[in-house]
């Protein structure tokens, strides 16, 4: 069973493009995350994950460990 969810996470503290690339790698390597893209211009992390394997909180935790914070969440459509 898998419960795939998409979410756009609006970040604060995403101030340097290199941090964006690093956050992207860190989230991508989190088990259960199937897709992660940090959009520097938008200041957002677009993530697709299997809620059976990884929780949103776990992803938010990765974000805060990288020195950034979540300011808003926009759940995305799962039917693409």
């Amino acid at each position: 069973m898998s419960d795939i969810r998409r979410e756009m996470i609006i970040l604060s503290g995403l101030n340097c493009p290199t941090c964006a690339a690093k956050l992207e790698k860190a989230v991508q390597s989190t088990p259960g995350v199937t897709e992660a893209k940090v959009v520097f211009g938008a200041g957002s992390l677009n993530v697709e994950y299997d809620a059976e394997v990884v929780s949103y909180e776990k992803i938010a935790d990765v974000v805060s460990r990288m020195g950034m914070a979540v300011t808003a969440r926009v759940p995305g459509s799962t039917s693409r």
Partner: protein
Amino acid sequence: MNLSTVNWLMIAVAIAAGAPIAKEAVTKLRMRQFSIALLVVLASIGAVLIGEAWEAAVVTVLYVLGGWLESRTLARTRSALRELVDAMPRTARVRRGDDIVEVSAYEVVRGDIVVVRPGDLVPVDGEVVAGSASLDTSSVTGESMPMEAGVGARVTSGSVSLGGYLEIRAEQVGADTTFSRLIYLVAEAGEQKPKVQRTLDRFAQWYTPSVISASVLVYLISRDMHLALAFLVIACPGALVAAAPVAMIAGLGSSARRGVLIKGGERLERIAGIDTVAFDKTGTLTLGRPRVVAVDAFEGSTPQQVLAAAASAELRSEHHLASAILARAEADGVDPLPAHDWDLRPGQGVVAVTEDGRQAAVGNTALMKALGAAVSPEQLAAVESREAEGETAALVSLAGRAIGLIGIADEPRPDAAMAITALRDAGIDRIVMLTGDNRRAALHIGAVLGIHSDHIRAGLMPDEKVGAIRDLQATGARVAMVGDGINDAPALATADVSIAMGASATRAAMEAADIALMSNNLMRIPHAMSHSRRILRVVRQNVALAVGVVVFLLAGVLAGRVHLASGMAVHEASILAVTLNGMRLLKQPRRG
């Protein structure tokens, strides 16, 4: 104060400003990240060790100040998107039995009845099933005029109720609402890279590693710590990487707030190169609300019979003329004959079989010919005289005999002529009209709007519109097609740039188009085109600036003119400059 006091003071400043940087560097080091913060700390320690405490102070203070300014300006350029996110509905009032309960907007399911009170955000896309209200749709469509919504009206999420009471049956909920998709599409568009950015990315890829290795090499050869540190500081390609994205998101976000969704990336370059704009006529240049202006019965029939037969054939039709005929039938109290076996014939009309087994049809002369219904020369003359007035004349047949004629007219949108003038002012050489309607009706509208008759192609089937676009492209024209996104989908897909109107009503069009206008305001088209050009211009300026700064710094370091502090200052200043330049796109010159 003697020199050593100043020295100690500088060290104190460096420690005070450097402490948070060191903390950041250590945190990132634990995450196995080699950060700029670490670079700054190392550079500062190095500077103190070689007796240049002032340099350590300047570098750390600049880093802190620069970081603060960057986060402030970045937040500003991202504000357009943030405002969209903030305007998103968070909660919904849902009818559950006799109760109205407040739930998260993401817990609403399709089919729920949602209650909207004054001040509430509409949390779903759906149909009004009870009540009426005045809705502010500006956050979705960019239109400031409130919309009056009553039973049967379709409303979109993100609208605000200004007064009244609504019950809405939810059709699209949560992440699938128009508004939610809009936000996603804006963010995704910001991520698409124009060609100029992709070139830059390739440059940045080898830039940093080569400068870092150069700095090591420089130190090994010259043993000049200063020079090596200066190299390291300029190795961070901050402005190079930030140049395009900050401008893109500011530009795309600000136009989205005005109800114009421009998809980013290399589309911007295509939009900037457009020299021809092709418009669909019906529903695009015109209101698309055709009215029946005449019902002529041929000999042996009554207008009521004509209307009844036409209404039966059109009962199941999605065609834009159908609603006009059905509305007129209803207004005149004429009941359509019950019918079945509807057959829509593209470019011709519609045919159905009535309950008593007779064939009822509405369409053009080609349809009548196909059905074998004879049309006399007088009847043909009647058709032509209606068409000369700019009307669409639909022949009606019953049981294989032409029984009458229905004249239908559609008016140009009030802002159509102005939008065409504005496009010409914006340097669009050629305005073209492509329509499935007859040539006379098309010429009539073209004359009103100032479109040259040579640039009007009428009587086109959907696939012939594709051919018409290809013909234009074959002459070297770069064509933008404006349409409603449903009937025109093939032509839109063929054009160099597709512009879909009223996209808040058609999700598929919103996803597929290069430019999606959330409203039906035609003036948004010249705005969108000039805004796209502005975005591209700012992106190019930023790229030029970033590359220029890098070249300047490299040359400066090599010439021994740029040191750690001044290098850091120029570096931070260049990031600020590209961000500030991008911020200009938040403001849009508004005309009309």
